[in-house]
Structures are given as C-alpha cells and as structure tokens.
C-alpha cells in the first residue's frame, strides 16, 4: 500500500499553511476557458442535434438561431484571443527568456517517460496490483487535459473559422475539405464536450479526493496536506531545494471560496446538464 496514504491530513482545516499552485493569470485563463467553453457547448449542441426538441426549445429560448450563432461566434472569438495570449506567453517564456523548464522537466506540460510509467502504475494501483505512483507538479491526466484542449483549440478553431469564412478558406482548401470541416468540427466538439463534462469533471473535481470540487483553480492555493497528498514529488523537491517557503501563499478569503463554489457549481451543473442532453440525443 502507498506509504503516503496514512499521512493524509486528518489535521485541522484551519490554521494550516497554503501554497500557490496557479498564478492569477492562469486562474483567469481557466475562467475565460470554461466560461467560453460552456457558451460554445451550449450554443453548439443545439446545432449538432438540431432535430431534437430541446435543441429547438433552447434556440427559441435565446431568441432563435440567429442569436445562438452570434453567441457561438462571440465565445469563439474570446477563446481564440485567450489562446493567442497563452501562445504568446509560452513564446515569451520559452523562446525569448530561454526558460527551458517550459518545454522540459518537472514543471513542463510536455509529456515524458515518467508520465507513461505513472499511467501504467496508476492503472495497476486501481486494480490493486501495485503501489500508488507519486505524482509531480503535473500528473499525466492533467497533461492530457492540457494537450486535449490545445489540440482541440487548433482543430475546432480552424474548422470553425473555415466554415465562418468559407469563401476565403476555399482559396486554399480543396473542395471536399469544406465538407470535412463540419464533420471535424462537430465530432471534435462532441469529444471535447463529452470529455470535459464527464472525464475532466470526475478526474479533477468529483473524485473522492477532491469532491465536490477542487478549489485550487479558483483560489490559486491549496493546503499543505492536499499538496503533499496530490503532488508528493513536487512537495519533496521544493522542500529539498529549500524553495517551499517561496511558494507560500495566503489562505483564501471566505468570499473567494464562496464565490468560487457558486461559480464552480453553476459550471458543473451546466456541464452535467449538457452531458445528459447530449447523451439522450445521441442515443435516441
């Protein structure tokens, strides 16, 4: 059995130390991402399943399809801007400032051999065939989430803009590609929706260790116990290198926790509702 389990904090919920995991900009980025994603999903699904009754009801509810398309495009543009800002950030840190940690190492989003070993180790632990792997700053499923969004952004974004500005894209795309972009856009969009609203929700928020939601992406900080439990390798490394104190953050204020709970709950409820609608439409 994993040796870390028993050390898990049965300690008090008050008075403990808090460590920073996400910067303010990263948290805002996540907020923009999930807001626009909910918007895109909510306006895209009625289109994908335009034959279903709820799709028509939803379209009528927001003022007909003209309004739905407008919101879909609006969210798309905002999300595109956020994505470009993120790319610029990577470029500045990685290329301009030569911060190699962006591309390699324990703080990078780039997958490495340990992630593969962690995945298999984790699977073995699920069925009781081995110890629970110790994760570093970003676990393999978190990296997968990141790259799924990254890839999805490019694929869905490109196919979406190709439909939006079809006559322009027709200058350099073959004829069949104009047919393909809809298939790509809707299938990849469906994958993103199903993945986020089921897998990501459970992996990150609804699993017993984080239930009902992981607040770290809202508050930016997590308790020392949580840090030790979820990312033991990073904790130990920082401690070893004497950098742990540098990551100390302030305990989140009550209003922020409450606000985050409300926002997070709304997001999860909307997501689960859309998931149920999608599944009913898909299997009916």
């Amino acid at each position, binding site marked *: 059995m994993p040796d870390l389990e028993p050390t898990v904090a049965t300690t008090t919920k008050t008075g403990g130390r808090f460590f920073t995991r996400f910067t303010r900009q990263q948290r805002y980025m996540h907020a923009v991402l999930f807001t626009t994603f909910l918007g895109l999903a909510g306006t895209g699904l009625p289109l994908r399943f*335009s034959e279903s009754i709820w799709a028509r009801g939803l379209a009528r509810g927001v003022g007909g399809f003209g309004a739905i398309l407008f919101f879909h495009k609006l969210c798309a543009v905002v999300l595109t801007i956020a994505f470009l800002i993120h790319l610029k950030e990577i470029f500045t840190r990685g290329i301009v400032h030569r911060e190699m940690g962006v591309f390699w190492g324990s703080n990078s989003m780039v997958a490495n051999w340990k992630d593969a070993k962690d995945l298999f180790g984790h699977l073995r632990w699920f069925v009781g065939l081995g110890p629970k792997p110790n994760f570093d700053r970003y676990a393999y499923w978190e990296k997968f989430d990141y790259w799924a969004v990254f890839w999805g952004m490019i694929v869905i974004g490109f196919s979406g803009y190709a439909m939006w500005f079809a006559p322009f894209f*027709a200058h350099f795309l073959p*004829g069949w590609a*104009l047919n393909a972009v*809809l298939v790509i856009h809707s*299938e990849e969009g469906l*994958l993103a929706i199903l993945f986020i609203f089921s897998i990501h929700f*459970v*992996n990150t928020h609804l*699993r017993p260790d984080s239930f009902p939601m992981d607040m770290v992406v809202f508050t930016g900080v997590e308790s020392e116990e949580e840090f030790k439990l979820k990312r033991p390798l990073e904790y130990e490394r920082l401690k070893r290198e004497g950098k742990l104190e540098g990551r100390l953050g302030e305990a989140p204020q009550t209003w922020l926790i409450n606000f985050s709970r409300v926002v997070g709950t709304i997001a999860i409820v909307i997501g689960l509702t859309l998931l149920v609608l999608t599944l009913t439409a898909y299997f009916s």
Partner: protein
Amino acid sequence: MGKAAGVRRILQEPLASRAKMFMRSGILVAGLAGLLLMFAAGRLNAQSECLACHGDQTMQDANGHSIAVDGKTFGESIHGSLQCNDCHTNIKEYPHPEQVAKVECKSCHADEAKGLAGSVHADSAEHPCTSCHGNAHTIFPKADSRSAVYPLNVPKTCGNCHGTEGMAKKHGLASVYPLYVDSIHGFALSNEGLLVAANCQSCHGSHHILSHTNPESPTYKTNIPKTCGSCHAKINDDYEMGIHGKAVAAGNLKAPVCTDCHTAHAILQPTEAAFRMQSTPICGSCHKDQLSTYRDTFHSQLGSLGGYVETARCWDCHGAHQILPASDPRSPINKANLVTTCGKCHAGANLSFVQYQPHANAHDRKLNPALYFVRLFMNVLLIGTLAFFLIHTILWLIRARYNQIKKKSTDGGKDA
C-alpha cells in the same frame, strides 16, 4: 311544354320587352295575348297583392316557419321584377291552397341544374339551391356584394358546410374553410378584399363541382397545373418545362403538382418562415436519400432551428417550378451556374468554394472517400479516447472510494 312554357317564358321577360314582343309579333302574338287574358282574369298579378299578407314579418305557417317576405329587399333582388307565382306556380288566385308547390329553380336555370346534376352536390334534398344562394327572396347578382356568391363571400358560404366537423364525419371531407382562411389566398381575399384572389369556386367551379378523383375535375391531379395556371400563368409555364411538370404530363402520377408542395387549401407565402420551415420535408417525402444527406449539413442544422430560416432549402438551389437536372445548362445547379447560385447567399463564392457538396455522404466510401475517412478517424478518436478514459476513471473512482472508506474505518469513522 309548348304553350304553358311559352307563356311562362314571356312572363319572365321585363314588361318593356314584353311589350316590344307583342308589337313585333303578328298573329301568333294576338293569339297568345288572347290566351294570356283568359288566364289573367282570375290570377293574382302584382307582388303587392301577395305582400298584403306576406309583408307582415311575423307571418308563419302551421309549422311555425316564417312565410314572410321583405318586399323592399325582394324588389331590389335579381328576381325582383318577377311575379310571385312565376316561381310559386300553383298559386293562381286568392285564397290559395294550403299546400304550396315546391319551387323549381331549374325551370328557368336549366344549365345550372344540369351542371349540378352530375356534381358532388347532386342530391337536391341535401343541397338545395338556397344552401349556397341564400334566402330565395334575397338573391342578388354575383357581382353584388350582398350576394352569397359574391367572390368575397364565397368562402364563407361554402364554409357553412365545409368548415364544420360534421362534414368530416358524414362524408370524410376535411374541414377546409379554416385552412383556406389562413392561407395566402384567404388572406388576400379577407384582408385585402382582392376580388381576383382565388376563392373556392376559382378552383372547384360552382355548379358542376367534381370530386378530385374524377379525371374531368379541375382539381384532378393532372389538371391542377392548368387550374392554378389560369391565374399563375408564368409559373405554370416554368413548371411545364421542369422535370416534375414533364413527368406529370408523361403520366407519372407520383411526380408532384402544385398542391403537393403548396398544399391545396393552407397555401402559404413561400418566402414566409412557416413555409420555409415545412418545405424541406415535403421534397424529402419523395427524395429520401437527398433529405438524409442534406440533414447532415450545416444548411440543415442551422435551418432546423426556428428563427433562422435563411439557410438554403431545396428550392433555393434547385429552383422551385422549373426544376432541371444538373446536366441541363439552364439548371441553377449546373456546374457553370454554381458560382451564381451559391453566390446568392455566400458573397465571394468562387470556383473552389462551389466544390462543396451539399449532399455529401460521409458514410459512403465510394462517393466521398476523403470525407469517409475523415469521419472514420474522428469517430475512432472520439470513441477511443472516451472509452479509455471512461474505464480509467471508473476504476479510479472505485479505488479512491475504497481507500477512503478503509481509511475512515481505521479512523473510527471520524471523516465520514
């Protein structure tokens, strides 16, 4: 026949022309005049004599039916110049018999009676003339707005029967009046007062109305284009040149005529949202494969949701009446015309753009190989990713919950 009929005919003429006839004719007239005088001696002549009693508006017969006549209105009506016993023929003197003979309109209106005899309204007991023309004493020429068969009044007159559920029960006929009233024809008639707007008899005729199953009926399937074309001449010309018109002319009764797409009574303005929303399934009721592939496109997905009706419907690309195969150079979907056709909605449409296939089938490997494999790849990606992570995450959930419970039990349930 003979004398009696001749007399009656003369009696029907207005006085002035009667006088003229007397003057023009020689011996015959003299003879007839003699006869006439013989009859006239004992008979009631003036309306005023009858109206002396029947002008009383409260007058009723033994059964309680009103037998009153409004002399003023009758005088203005189309029969106002006739004597009462021109129609009520067995009344010749006062007091008159209790039983009054049935009035036979056909004794004068023989052509109408003949037409009616072979029609769907042939049963005169069920459909007396008055059922359409109204009270026999207040019949006006059809150009008079007081007439029950004045163009603007026709739908209401027919609707007296064809607007009730009783018709459906008795004869299996739909209640069409409400459908007509909301149609573009009904709207033009009732709201704009357009005398030329099609009313019931414009299509069905008036006395000689035949069932639509009768090949002689103007509403028989193959006659419908001509019937509608009597007003919509240009559209009929287009239709006859189109693939549907040719098929119908060649005897293919499966091909649509006007009413198959526009319906017969509930005809809508085609540019109206309601018609745009309902038009595609109508074409699709025959063109099933095309409807199915259309459903997969953005045109359909957008267009299926109410409130956004601009997206291409079948006839936006194929034309509506003069539908021609893509091989025909006049067809809007002929290769040479595609830039123009697509360009109607897609500003900047170019040769490459129009290679888009509005009926591509992503499930057909032979017809659309590229699309087929794109869809296949996306499906494998979708199913593969979800399947792996579903198993992964469900196992994780079970394991994490198991550990949590185990921990709680060692804690004595403190964290429960």
